């Protein structure tokens, strides 16, 4: 098959199909992030660490957040896996139950007390990017 025929009968239809698939996906909500978390609802959670699941593919931070009325709200924060955490300077041993933490992220859609973590601030003031792929600005909020 000559190159010209391939371009006409195969490549162009392929590009058109790609175009249709692109158009079918709405502007913002492509990556799985956007279907589970709301980029319009940033949260800053200050609390104590209940436990840290240092696991692949994504880690899970369980935070007890004290509310103004005295009750404690339990939050689950999805964050990066062990490899990414290590590359950013965190260790499993940095997470001790009972320690104070601040986590910034985006709230979950269906499950309100879940968030996608972006920034972690330890008690000593050190701040780390803990985001997983996707999300607004594609990591520009590091």
């Amino acid at each position, binding site marked *: 098959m000559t190159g010209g025929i391939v371009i006409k009968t195969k490549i162009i239809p392929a590009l058109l199909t*790609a175009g249709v*698939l*692109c158009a079918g*996906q709405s502007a913002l*909500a492509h*990556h799985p992030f956007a*279907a589970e978390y709301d980029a319009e609802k940033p949260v800053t959670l200050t609390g104590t660490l209940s436990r840290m699941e240092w696991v692949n593919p994504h880690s899970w931070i369980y935070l007890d957040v004290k509310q103004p009325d005295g009750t404690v709200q339990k939050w689950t924060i999805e964050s990066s*896996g062990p490899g990414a955490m290590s590359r950013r300077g965190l260790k499993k041993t940095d997470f001790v139950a009972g320690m104070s933490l601040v986590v910034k992220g985006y709230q979950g*859609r269906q499950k309100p007390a879940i968030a996608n973590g972006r920034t972690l601030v330890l008690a000593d003031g050190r701040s780390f990017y803990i985001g997983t792929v*996707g999300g607004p600005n594609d990591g520009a909020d590091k």
Partner: protein
Amino acid sequence: MSQAYRESLWLFAVTQALHLVAVSAFLGAILIVDLRLLGRGSDRQSHVGIARSAQRVLVWAGPAVLATGIPQFTANALRYYASPVFAFKMGLLAAALVFTVTVRRRVAGGDGDRLPTWISRAVGAVSIALWMGVAISGRWIGFSE
């Protein structure tokens, strides 16, 4: 509103899944020729016919890979654009394409029977390394934030 987001999540995941099916068919057509190059020395007659038939499969599978790959890129263009692993994958892809339509085409075709066996084997090995490298680095993008 969240219904639309749910549906687009579905579309992204299924597009990616179909990309893997197309990649699989593409790789099969690549590997069937490369494996023969690796094992050259026996069964010479059928090599050329298989290479030609494999090329016909590539002509279908290749565009399918494109059609399912491009939407993934546009869905998260900033992320991929900034990713060194994605750049590496595209570089390998370019190298693989050039290698396939130049060196490998000659060696897998009729000329190949006149060349020493080690050249066929080397070409087969390089082709496998390049194309599997594209597939592997594609998956690795997700691990390289």
